[in-house]
Every structure is written in structure tokens, then in C-alpha cells.
């Protein structure tokens, strides 16, 4: 088990190095000049060249890469070209909103999806099952920003139940924090409901077909709630897997949801940075995103042993 964890951690480092090389090349080989953007509209070419020199952008690519890599190795993600703030600090300021959004989304999506999935499996091959599955597909057929606008219009502008936009740190009270997160989490969660509900339904069906459940049923010892408990427990493994994959999808969805609901999270940070060609931020955030993704999947793999003692490493 320990050897497995160490091996996985090592391969994580390799994966991160690959991500680093890839992102660096992507940014530096494509057109776009932060110096020109910094210098503003009235700048002369000489001023732009001056800024490029100061930023080290005139150096050969390998030199720039080694310099960057050296800093990364020491845990230094660099400084924003525009604001001069350390990337780590900028990311730190944006972590809470993004994590809050991801967690509440996951909570809403999993609760809703598992309920739907179990219900569909229970009523398998009836019209309830079919309807639920079609409705769940519709959930990810509509672009997230359209859903977001509609929810804002109904619940924030017309009914005035919830705020339109923004984020309140949890330290300023759980209620305001939650009020700000309801609409974005529902918007973002809808896309994952379909995915998780389908997997839940399938695993439930598998488990329900297993011999011991059938035996239990035949013997008449189990009532329905016990069955459900058994079945759900065994369906845990595939559901956790989906959550692992879902983290990647969630990150992608966060970018759009944060824009629509003006949540000052990491997604917005990186989208703004791309528009400004703020290389250190883009590189840093993508590295962090990837690191989290890899770690979450590591944790997911390890948690299999907890959910299902039959799995061993």
C-alpha cells in the first residue's frame, strides 16, 4: 500500500513536469506580447522592446524555460507581469470561492443524481426510468451560461430571493455565503447530474442483480430500505470514480459559471490572465489545477480500499 502511494506520487511529479513543459511551450510559441499590452496604446516600439527586456522575454526560449523551471522547483510560481503580485498570493486569494463553488456543486449534483439514479434503477425499464434519463440528458444539452441567465432572471431579478452575483466569504456568515452559491451551484451541477445519475443507475442495476441480493430477496429477510443500503454501498466505487473524472469537468465548468455569476475564483483569474497574456499566472494556475486533479484522482483511487475492502494494492 505504502509502496503504491509512493509510486503514484512519483508519477504525479512526472505528469506535472509534462504539464509544465506543455504549458510553457504553448504560451511562448504562440503570438501575443504582454509587453505590448502593458505599454498601452500610446507606446513607441522602443518602449515595448524595453519592457520585453525587463521582463526577460527577449532571452532565448531555453533560457526562459530553465529560469522558470528553477523557480518552480523552489515552489516559486513567479510574479504577475501586470500587478507585480506573487502568483501564489493571487491564487490563494481566489481559492476559497472556487473550492466553495466546487464543493456545493458536487453536493447538489451528487444528491440529486444519486436520488434520480436510484429511482430510475428501482423503476428500471418503466416510463419513469425513461423520462428521468431523457430529462437528465437535457441537463447537459443546454449551454451553462443560458441556464445561468435564466436562473438569475427568475430567482434574483423577478422573485428577488437570491443575489444576482458575487461571493461572500464564509467567514462573513454561512447564510450569506450559501445564498450567493445557490444559483451558481445549480447551474454548474445540472451538467453533472446526467452523468452521475446514469452511472448510479447502472451500478444499482448491477448490484441488484447480484446473487446475494437475490438470495436475500428470495428469503424475504430484507425489506426495501435494507436492500437500498446494501446496493448503494456497493455502488460506491463507480460513483467515486465518476467524481474523480467529474473534478476535471468541474474545473472547466467553473470558468464559465464564475464569469456569469461574477465569482472571484481561479477560473476568472486565468481567463483574465489569458486575455492579458500574463504568462506567470496562466502557467501557475494551470500547474495548480493539474496538480489538484492528479491528487484528487490519487485520493479517489485510495478511497476505493475504504469503500470496497476487496480492492487491495
Amino acid at each position: 500500500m505504502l509502496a503504491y502511494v509512493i509510486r503514484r506520487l512519483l508519477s504525479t511529479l512526472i505528469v506535472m513536469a509534462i504539464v509544465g513543459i506543455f504549458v510553457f511551450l504553448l504560451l511562448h510559441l504562440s503570438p501575443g506580447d504582454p509587453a505590448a499590452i502593458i505599454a498601452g496604446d500610446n507606446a513607441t516600439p522602443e518602449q515595448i522592446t524595453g519592457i520585453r527586456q525587463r521582463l526577460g522575454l527577449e532571452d532565448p526560449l531555453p533560457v526562459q524555460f530553465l529560469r522558470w523551471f528553477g523557480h518552480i522547483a523552489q515552489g516559486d510560481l513567479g510574479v504577475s507581469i501586470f500587478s507585480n503580485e506573487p502568483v501564489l498570493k493571487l491564487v490563494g486569494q481566489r481559492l476559497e470561492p472556487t473550492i466553495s463553488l466546487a464543493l456545493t456543486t458536487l453536493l447538489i449534483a451528487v444528491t440529486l443524481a444519486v436520488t434520480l439514479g436510484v429511482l430510475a434503477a428501482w423503476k428500471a425499464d418503466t416510463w419513469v426510468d425513461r423520462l428521468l434519463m431523457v430529462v437528465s440528458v437535457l441537463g447537459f444539452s443546454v449551454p451553462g451560461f443560458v441556464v445561468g441567465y435564466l436562473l438569475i432572471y427568475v430567482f434574483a431579478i423577478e422573485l428577488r430571493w437570491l443575489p444576482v452575483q458575487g461571493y461572500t466569504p464564509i467567514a462573513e456568515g454561512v447564510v450569506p455565503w450559501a445564498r450567493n452559491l445557490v444559483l451558481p451551484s445549480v447551474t454548474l451541477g445540472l451538467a453533472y447530474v446526467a452523468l452521475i445519475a446514469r452511472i448510479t443507475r447502472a451500478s444499482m442495476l448491477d448490484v441488484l442483480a447480484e446473487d446475494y441480493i437475490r438470495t436475500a430477496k428470495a428469503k424475504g429477510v430484507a425489506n426495501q430500505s435494507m436492500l437500498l443500503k446494501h446496493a448503494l454501498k456497493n455502488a460506491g466505487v463507480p460513483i467515486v470514480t465518476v467524481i474523480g473524472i467529474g473534478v476535471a469537468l468541474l474545473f472547466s465548468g467553473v470558468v464559465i459559471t464564475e464569469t456569469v455569476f461574477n465569482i472571484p475564483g481561479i477560473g476568472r483569474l486565468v481567463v483574465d490572465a489569458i486575455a492579458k497574456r500574463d504568462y506567470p499566472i496562466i502557467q501557475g494556475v494551470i500547474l495548480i489545477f493539474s496538480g489538484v486533479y492528479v491528487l484528487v484522482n490519487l485520493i479517489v483511487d485510495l478511497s476505493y480500499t475504504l469503500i470496497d475492502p476487496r480492492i487491495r494494492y
Partner: protein
Amino acid sequence: MNTRRQILKVGAAAGALIAAPSLVFAQPAPTRARTLRAVMHGDLAAFDPIWTTANMASYHGGLIYDTLFGIDSQNQPQPQMVQSFNLSDDKLTWTFVLRDGLRFSSGEPVTAKDCVASIRRWAVRDGGGQHMFRRVTDTPVVDEKTFRIVLREPYPLLLDWLGKAATNVCYIMREKEASTDPQTQITEYIGSGPFIYNRGESRQGARYVYDRNPNYVPRSEPASFMSGGKVARMDRIIMENMSDPQTQVSALQAGEIDFLEWPSLDLIDTLEKDRNIKIEVMNQSGTMGWCRLNHLHPPFNNVLARRAMLHLTHPTEIMKATFGNEKYFRACGSIFACNTPTENDANTDWFKAGQNIDRARQLFREAGYDGRPVVLLSASNVLHMTNAGLLYQQWLKAAGVNVELVTSDWGGVVARRANRNPPDQGGWNIFFTSASGAGYSNPVSLAGHASNGANAWFGWPTDERNEQLRDAWAAASTPEARMQAARAMQENAWNYVPHVHYGQWLAPSAYRANLTGMIGMPELVPFWNVGRAG
């Protein structure tokens, strides 16, 4: 490096502790009623208003720094930090004396040294400052509160430059920051203005927080543009960076924000119906759509092809496509923008005649256009540029020109427009941008008015007469003489055609109707003097 910065920080904190103890000890956050939440046109990406020409940096500067002079609503420079000033009889030596009691938010008094250092740094970056400093021989400091500017020849525009609101504004910083290399950003943001930047509460890219400067002593005159008393009536100003136009409008309607600088004109109808919202054009000289031509390569190295572009342009079409509501845009034939002091109608017959695609086609033919593709750079994330790209493409095709429309985000346009190669080797023929009407009205300080070849702004036009006329404008000593020079410059410009305009728009701002004392002016959105009724 790190430790040095920490020491500096500790030092600065200690200074603040002695000077203004009330700032250091935690204060309760100001109430919502005493807080102004504003969404501006963009993000405050960089904080140094001398280093960048971005308007957002200038707004930031306007809150935390003060200026020596400030223009009033008649565009006349009035003393602001300056108590008294005089000009020697030979018109070569200006002497300035500062007001009593001026202090930076860090506690130190503002001295003549700070002013001279700030002017010198500004003059390296600003177009007007550069023009002026070619005639400056010395800037001696006389005493703590007195300094001079000594000239080689009379320069009537000196006070206008020190008090102008267009970027770069001559904001007065501490000597410590002002002695930073002008090509490098400053890292401490300390001024003597009506507000103090609250770094701790700000979140880069999300929101920027400014607290009332309790030690600021405003002038006694009423506020008028950049001049008069800058009274902070709100305890806190928060500039939020909110990018989605629909969300911005919804937030304003819900009262979550108080001020929206540029609501999307497509959503303005909704706001006009809302009794709690007031809509006002704050900047009456607006913004000009700017179609820049590359003078280095065919076809626009030929003046006939450039003239063709004048006849091809139908400004109100682009405006209508982008802004819809005719209240908020117009066509303008003056090279100095309309509703500005330099607006005039010299040599604008082509404009009065309106779009004439046949004439354009004929001129392209006379220019020897050989069918090579004309490369248009268009920004996909700026709506008026996107629409300008699409419509110019349609018009050029109608005039028999082959077009290659290259779309990227604005960052991509900015990178490619600097390329002087032929269009098929990474260069370009046309790109779109915009500049404020107030900026345009100034023949000297707008870099785009220069036609000095390789040193000129992107497009690199050459015209000696234009350069002579710009100097003549700056040297003119009466308003009449200045207007005459401006007319002559426009007469000449529409013959050699440095660039083309695709309309002028007056973006309205929207704000909660209970706000009072909003100052509408070009180039800057000042939040001093703004309070809340009730």
C-alpha cells in the same frame, strides 16, 4: 530581495503608525450606505498611471493622487495642489508654490522635490510631456514648497499639460516612487489624494478598495472636473471587476452595485424603464472608432487607396450595429473628434457626401490595386472592433478588394500590429482600435496624430507638414491662432489620410438614482464629491 521588500514594508507600516494611528487599528468596515460600489469598463490590471496609458490606472490614480493643476469644466487649468504661481516676463521661467498642509497618506509632507521628480518621470512617458520637455532646460527646487520650470522657448501649453485629465495624467507621487525608472512599474501606491488605496481588502482582478483619506484637505472652491474641492463624501469606494454585461446590469438593478460605467447599450432599455436607475452620458466628447492604415505596404502606401477608405466608410452603420440606440452615437468628420475644442469642418466634403463605394472602387483602381489580399486585424472580444471588421470586409469586397479578415482576441491584435513586415509575412494592412474624443482633440499628446514615419504610431505615416503644424498648434498663444493651426492640420490630414474614423459614440453610464454629486467629465470618472441621498 524578499527580505529587503519586507523591511521596506515594515518601515512603511511604522511610518503610517506614527502619522495616522487611526489607519492601522482595525476599523469596522464602512456601512453599505457609506460605500460606493462601482463597476468600471475594465480591470485595473496595472497600478502605475505613468507607466501605462490604461484609463483604469488613471482612475485609480485620480482617487489616490492629487495633481498640481486640474482642468475645470471649461477645459481651463486651475491650481489644485499649487497655492500660487507666476511666469517671468520673458515667458521662460515658471515658479510654483505648493499649498500648506499637503501630506501623503504615509504621513510625509508633499515637497517641491516630490513634484519635480513626478513631473520628470511623467514627461518621459506622456506625449505632451515629451513635447514640452524638448523645450525645458531645468527644473530647480527653490525650497521645500517652491520649484521652477525653466524653458528654452515660451511654451503656452505648460499648465494645460500639468492639469490635463487624459492619460498620462501628471499625478504627484513621493520622490521615492517617482524616481523609479519610467519603464518599470512602481510597487507602492501612496499619494496625497482624497482616498487611500486599501491593499489588504483588495483582490487583484476582482475588486479594488479605496478608503477616505481622513487627512486630506480639499480646496474650498466647488468641484469642477479635475479642479476645485475634492471632497470625499463616501467612506469607501469599491471598484469591482465584473465582466459579464448581463450580470452587470442585473446587479445594478438589484442594488448590489451603485455605478456602472458602460452598461451594454443593448440592455439600456431595461435600465431606462427602472425608476431606481439614472442614465447619464458622463463624457460628452465620447470615444472615436479608429481604423488605422499601414502606410508601409501596398495598397495603403498609396495616398489614393487611403482616400478610397474615406469614401468607403459608413460610420453610422458600424455604430448602429454595435450600439443600436441612435441617441448614443454619431458620425464625425473632424480628425479631432466632435464636441471638443479643436473640432472643425475643414476639408470634409468627402464626409458630407457620405459613403460612395463606386468612388472608392475607382480610387483603388487608380492606386494600381493589384488584387492582393488586404489583411484586416479584428479583435473578437471587443464588440465595436468585431463589427468594424465585418462591415469593412463587406465594403471592401463591394469595392473590388480582396480581404483577409484575421480574428483574434485584442491581445493578439496588439502583438501583430507591431509587426512592420508585409501583410503576407506576419504584418497587416488595417487594424481597429479606439481613443477618447478628448484624447483626439489634442494634436500633440495623442501619439496617433504624429506622422513622423518610423517613429510614428502603428501604421507609421509620414508627413512633414503635419509635424510642422502640430508644433505650430502648441506654439500658438491665442485660442484663435490655435484653432487656425488645428484647421490647417485637418485640411492637410484629410488630403494625405493618416487613418480613418468609423464614428463617435457617447457611452452612457448608469447609476442608482440616490447617488448625488456625480461629476461627468471626459477621460476620468472621479468619485470625490459623490454622496448618497437619504
